[in-house]
């Protein structure tokens, strides 16, 4: 048979035409969690998909300047993509950008909060398994983009993510004795016990009632309404501190984006 060699650039024949079986493909809606360089010009992309949880895919040639994949496969991008099932890692063949969150990317503080969300999802999301985290992540990113107080969005996101992962702090009933904490003396909070402790089961760090009320609101209210919550600086600081302790205790790893947020705040002072 006469024809160009199969590696030639003008070889546009489909795999079927060449008698090869095409790789089975599937489409996914996803948010890009992180990327890593792979080989000479490829990129390994960790996607958080709506239907299959975390999926790793290879974007071939994504580090070349002319790559059509590179722009849309940046962390934070909300995309629709086609993957081809391969032996080890699936290959990302097409990408369509749904939302790139330019207002979040263009603000160092907001992009750090967004990174915090991606980092948490990356830690708790199971591979190849759907969950209810996808709408939460998208919702959180859209709230950041809409200019809602990033601190409140972050706390609500953390509470809900912890709950989805099975580590949600008990807020209405005492984490030790199980009785409702309403009107039961001085409350405290203990990550190790799993939430609020009533006055009789004292043990953790002191928790003020206004902080508890704010936490309950952030955990239970409609995500779109959380910007309405009025919290003073002191309560805000305490919420952040105890949720951070709870996250670090249950996820058992340092949270890098939060550490960077601290660096940014030190710079502002």
């Amino acid at each position, binding site marked *: 048979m006469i024809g160009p060699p199969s590696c030639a650039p003008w070889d546009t024949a489909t795999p079927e035409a060449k008698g090869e079986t095409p790789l089975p493909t599937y489409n996914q809606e996803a948010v890009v969690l*992180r990327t890593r360089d792979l*080989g*000479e010009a490829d990129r390994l992309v960790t996607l958080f998909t709506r239907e299959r949880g975390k999926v790793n895919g290879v974007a071939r040639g994504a580090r070349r*300047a*002319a*790559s*059509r*994949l*590179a*722009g*849309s496969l*940046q*962390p*934070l*991008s909300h995309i629709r993509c086609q993957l081809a099932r391969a032996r080890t890692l699936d290959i990302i063949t097409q*990408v*369509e*950008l749904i939302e*790139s969150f*330019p207002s979040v*990317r*263009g*603000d*160092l503080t907001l*992009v*750090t909060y967004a*990174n*915090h969300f*991606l*980092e948490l999802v990356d830690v708790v999301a199971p591979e190849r398994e759907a969950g209810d985290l996808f709408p939460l992540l998208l919702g959180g990113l859209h709230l950041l983009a809409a200019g809602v107080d990033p601190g409140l969005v972050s706390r609500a996101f953390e509470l809900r993510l912890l709950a989805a992962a099975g580590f949600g702090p008990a807020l209405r009933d005492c984490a030790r004795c199980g009785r409702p904490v309403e009107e039961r003396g001085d409350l405290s909070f203990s990550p190790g016990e799993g939430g609020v402790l009533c006055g009789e089961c004292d043990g953790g760090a002191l928790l003020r009632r206004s902080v508890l009320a704010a936490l309950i609101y952030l955990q239970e209210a409609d995500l779109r309404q959380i910007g309405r919550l009025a919290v003073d600086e002191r309560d805000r600081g305490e919420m952040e501190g105890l949720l951070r302790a709870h996250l670090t205790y249950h996820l058992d790893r340092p949270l*890098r*984006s939060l*550490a*960077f947020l601290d*660096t*940014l705040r030190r*710079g502002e002072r």
Partner: protein
Amino acid sequence: MIQELTRLPGVGPKTAQRLAFFLLAQPIADVQSLAEALLRARQNTRQCGVCCNLTEEDPCPLCSDSRRDRDAICVVERPADVQAVERTRDFHGRYHVLHGVISPLEGVGPEDIRLAELLRRLGEGTCREVIVATNPSVEGEATAMYIARLVKPLGIRVTRLASGLPAGGDLEYADQVTLSRALQGRREL
């Protein structure tokens, strides 16, 4: 030898084997000069005390060249980026190599890259513009914004490389992000 060669980026066991057999077939003098070049480069290369670029002399030739402007510093991620900008022959200022970008997810903070060195240079007062030429990636942009936060209060102009369509490219095949950036950054004709 094959094992040592496999440690190079982009070299798999087969390529390593090919390279090894090639080297074995070469005259001993050629192999010796290659080995010496590798060793010499590694031993004599260090970071320039001014711009942090890799160099054999300190300060590096670019920093000690008196013909180069002192009022602009182009900040890049890696030494290879200096070569890339130099190839354009459009920039006549000086450079600063960060040796990395801020990446909270990878645990790389501002203190892990050569930012303190940049601020010290700016403190000398000859620089009037900092051109941030980090990659147009999430980390590169975050680093650029962080640098702007630090440098602007010093009264120094901070600019960022434009991003848009590649020269000789095809509009139809441009990706959405690049094309929308190109639209935002359009200029008057």
